[in-house]
């Protein structure tokens, strides 16, 4: 925290963080007005990886937009797939077989673990620790192998379809997923001993970058950012979709609001996601993975539909406006990090540069998802 208030007479200078800077996880630019190492004002400048998803949505058929969702947030692509197929299914009134929903949840939660693991590694890398990143990648590779054996890709999945999923799992998947969960359960204490309880990391995160509950509300922050500030908000519980009501899991909430709280929320979420995957694997019903009646060409009725899902970064919502044709009339993607980042400018005022970067890391930014 800033120990000294800035005097008005001190000279300030502008520091341009990015658009190519190791701490911004991609191409974000932050204009910082600095007084020495203290940040007087910060203004994120977006749009360096604006990829026109919403425009593309209006130019493609409903099905053809699927690959884009995976490229918005490539770390948790399946949740974005899920959000999009859900809203289209809602609009077109397509029923999804139960097994397909289970597969969706299993793969999404595995993907969430991989996303959190990567965030964990990248966050510690921001703080200057190298090895945890590689350990996290080691675990993450196991998930990627599992998901690749189902979906065929490693990162930018395009696995869900309107009315189900593209492919059923193979016979090794369940055993592989269980083995992975066992392995990760054994690794989690190591992560906590190496990183969480490390005095250096604790000093860097505790009481750094506090975000209040009110600030979350005013800026619309969701996901682990809100949950780290004591807000019990998880779309999976709040606005249940898919088969989440049938599964038992907790929503980790920390009230401190500092970077450490956000860190702990994500670490606890890994455990909860493992629980979800295990339960879903236990309950996995037999049956088709694709709705038999799913139309080949989707033409939802005229109207305006919204669906939100909980991604690794928060509440992702898709609003589609259909004019009854085979292309969306308007496709709005509500990305969680867009809102989460918007509070950065206010939150980091008066902080030191390294603390502000710790705060930025704790927001878990995926820039293409912000810029869309």
């Amino acid at each position, binding site marked *: 925290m800033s120990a000294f208030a800035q005097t008005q007479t001190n000279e300030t200078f502008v520091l341009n963080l990015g658009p190519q800077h190791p701490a911004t996880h991609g191409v974000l630019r932050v204009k910082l007005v600095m007084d020495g190492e203290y940040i007087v004002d910060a203004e994120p400048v977006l749009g360096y990886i604006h990829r026109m998803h919403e425009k593309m949505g209006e130019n493609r058929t409903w099905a053809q937009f699927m690959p884009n969702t995976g490229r918005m947030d490539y770390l948790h692509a399946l949740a974005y797939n899920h959000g999009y197929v859900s809203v289209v299914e809602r609009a077109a009134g397509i029923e999804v077989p139960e097994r397909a929903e289970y597969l969706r949840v299993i793969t999404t939660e595995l993907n969430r673990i991989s996303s959190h693991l990567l965030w964990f590694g990248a966050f510690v890398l921001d703080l200057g620790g190298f090895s945890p990143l590689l350990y996290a990648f080691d675990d993450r590779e196991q998930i990627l192998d599992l998901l690749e054996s189902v979906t065929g890709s490693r990162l930018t999945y395009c696995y869900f379809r309107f009315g189900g999923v593209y492919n059923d799992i193979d016979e090794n998947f369940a055993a592989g997923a269980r083995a992975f969960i066992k392995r990760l359960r054994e690794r989690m204490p190591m992560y906590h001993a190496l990183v969480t309880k490390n005095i250096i990391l604790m000093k860097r995160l505790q009481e750094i970058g506090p975000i209040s509950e009110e600030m979350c509300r005013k800026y619309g922050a969701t996901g682990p950012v809100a949950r780290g500030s004591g807000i019990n908000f998880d779309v999976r519980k709040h606005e249940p979709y898919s088969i989440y009501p049938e599964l038992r899991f907790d929503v980790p909430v920390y009230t401190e609001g500092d970077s450490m709280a956000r860190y702990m929320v994500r670490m606890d979420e890994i455990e909860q996601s493992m629980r979800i995957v295990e339960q879903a694997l236990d309950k996995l019903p037999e049956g088709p993975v694709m709705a038999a009646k799913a139309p080949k060409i989707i033409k939802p009725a005229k109207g305006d539909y*919204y669906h939100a899902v909980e991604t690794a970064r928060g509440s992702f919502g898709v609003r589609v406006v259909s004019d009854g044709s085979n292309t969306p009339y308007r496709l709005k993607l509500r990305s969680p990090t867009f809102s989460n980042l918007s509070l950065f400018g206010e939150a980091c005022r008066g902080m030191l540069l390294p603390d502000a970067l710790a705060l930025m890391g704790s927001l878990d930014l995926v820039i293409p998802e912000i810029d869309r």
Partner: protein
Amino acid sequence: MKLNAIKQALAVIAPEALAEAEHAKKGALLDVTVSATQVVEAVSVLDKEGFFIEAITGVDWLGEKENAHKDAVAAAKKKAQDAGKAAAKKVADAGGDEEAQKAAQKEAEAGVAIPAAPVEPFSEEMEVVYDFNNFAEFCRVVLRTRVPRSNPEVPTISHIYPGANWHERETHDFFGIKFVGHPYLAPLLLPEDADFHPLKKDFHV
């Protein structure tokens, strides 16, 4: 219940445009249409009830009225045709000759009014959509307002919700909708010198 409280409060502002939506079908619980001047008032109500802002976006309804007019014309024409045919048939059934049939048909067709082409161009509209949600309990409220496409201006709500700042800038980027009173309405996602609004329906490179 938040929903009831908010319904009562919003009913004061926009009594006629309050529609309860079915969540399973639409994804929202309440769909409110207000005029541009009522936006700030409505948002203040939501703020007081502890709602958080999810998103702001726009929809360009270019061609909506023209299409509606065309549809109306087509429908009227069809109706006239049907009526004419029916009248002709009636006459034929009554044993009337061809001429009588034609006359009856014409008369009947003339009886159906076909909407006239407007003298001025259609006053097309754009829509601004605000999504609000509540942390405490599920209650998604959609707030809509329509503005004329020729002069799209909406008062800003960024003083109530600072998070709206970016959403409004983004909407301005994409649709050119001006948020009156916004502190810094510069392009957010588009290049800093961009003067185009790509999500407008008449946008071409």
